[in-house]
C-alpha cells in the first residue's frame, strides 16, 4: 500500500454537486425508510419486505401502501417468487400544487428464491391495510418433526 495524497477539499464544482446529491439521498432514504441497497436498485421503488418462517410456512409481508389489489401480480416460476406491480399517483385534480412528495410511485418488483421443499401450488396471498401477506406452505418433509427419544 502506498501513501495517497489527500486533497482537503473538493476542487471541482461537480464534486460539490455530487456530494450534495449524496447528502440529499441520505436524507431521503432516512425519512422514507428506504433500504441500504437503494443505490443498486433498478426500479424506482423497492417496497420493504419482512420474511419469516414458522412451523408450517414461510410468510412474506410487503408494505404496499396505496396500491390496489388489482395492480399487484404474484408469479411463481420454478423456485422464484416474484411480486410485481404498479402504484399510480392518485391525482385529485389538475390544480394540485405539490409542496412535498415523499411517497413512492411507479412500478416495483421483488423476487425471492424459494426453498425446494415448499408447496408452490398452495401459495396464498392477502392484502390488508396496505400490507401484502404471501404465505408459502412448507412441504411435509421440510417440517420439523418431533422425535421422542426414550431414555433407558
Amino acid at each position, binding site marked *: 500500500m502506498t501513501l495517497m495524497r489527500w486533497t482537503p477539499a473538493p476542487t471541482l464544482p461537480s464534486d460539490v454537486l455530487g456530494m450534495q446529491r449524496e447528502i440529499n439521498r441520505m436524507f431521503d432514504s432516512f425519512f422514507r*425508510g428506504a433500504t441500504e441497497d437503494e443505490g443498486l436498485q433498478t426500479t424506482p421503488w423497492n417496497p*420493504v*419486505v419482512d420474511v419469516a418462517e*414458522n412451523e408450517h410456512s414461510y410468510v412474506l*409481508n410487503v*408494505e404496499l*401502501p*396505496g396500491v390496489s389489489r388489482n395492480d399487484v401480480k404474484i408469479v411463481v416460476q420454478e423456485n422464484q417468487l416474484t411480486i410485481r406491480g404498479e402504484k399510480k399517483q392518485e391525482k385529485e385534480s389538475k390544480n394540485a400544487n405539490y409542496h412535498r412528495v*415523499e411517497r413512492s410511485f411507479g412500478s416495483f418488483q421483488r423476487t425471492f428464491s424459494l426453498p425446494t421443499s415448499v408447496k408452490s401450488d398452495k401459495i396464498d396471498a392477502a392484502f390488508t391495510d396496505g*400490507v401484502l401477506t404471501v404465505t408459502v406452505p412448507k412441504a411435509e418433509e421440510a417440517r420439523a418433526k418431533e422425535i421422542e427419544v426414550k431414555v433407558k
Partner: protein
Amino acid sequence: MTKGEVTVKTGHSAESDVNGLCRVPAADVYETPDAYVLMLDLPGVEKDAITLMLDKGELRVQAKPSEQKQTPGRLLFSEMRPGTFTRSFTIGDGIDTNSIDAHFDKGVLTVKLYKNAQMKPREISIN
C-alpha cells in the same frame, strides 16, 4: 412561507411509544384552490389505531401498526422499521379547523384541510 400555509414539521418528533421507537411516515402535501391535502403512508395500521390531534396550530398523526400484521414466526430477514408512526404538521391561520376531513384507505391516510374564505383565491371583476 405565508401565514396560512400547512407545513411539515421537522422529520423527527419528540413523541415515541413505550419502546421509544418511532417511525416517520412518508408524506405528500399538496394544495388545491380550496384546500391543503396531506397524504401519509401508514402500512399495516388499522383505522382505529390512528390518532389525529389538532393542538395549538399543530396537527399530530400517530398510528401504531397492529400486532397481528407483524410477520409471525422467526424472522429470516426484516426491512420494516418497528415503532409507532409519528409525524406533525404546522397548520396556519388560513385553515378552517372546524372542517377537516380524514379518510383511510389501503394503508394511506388522507387529510383534507379546507382553507378559510380569506385564503381562497378570489377573482375580482373589472368594471
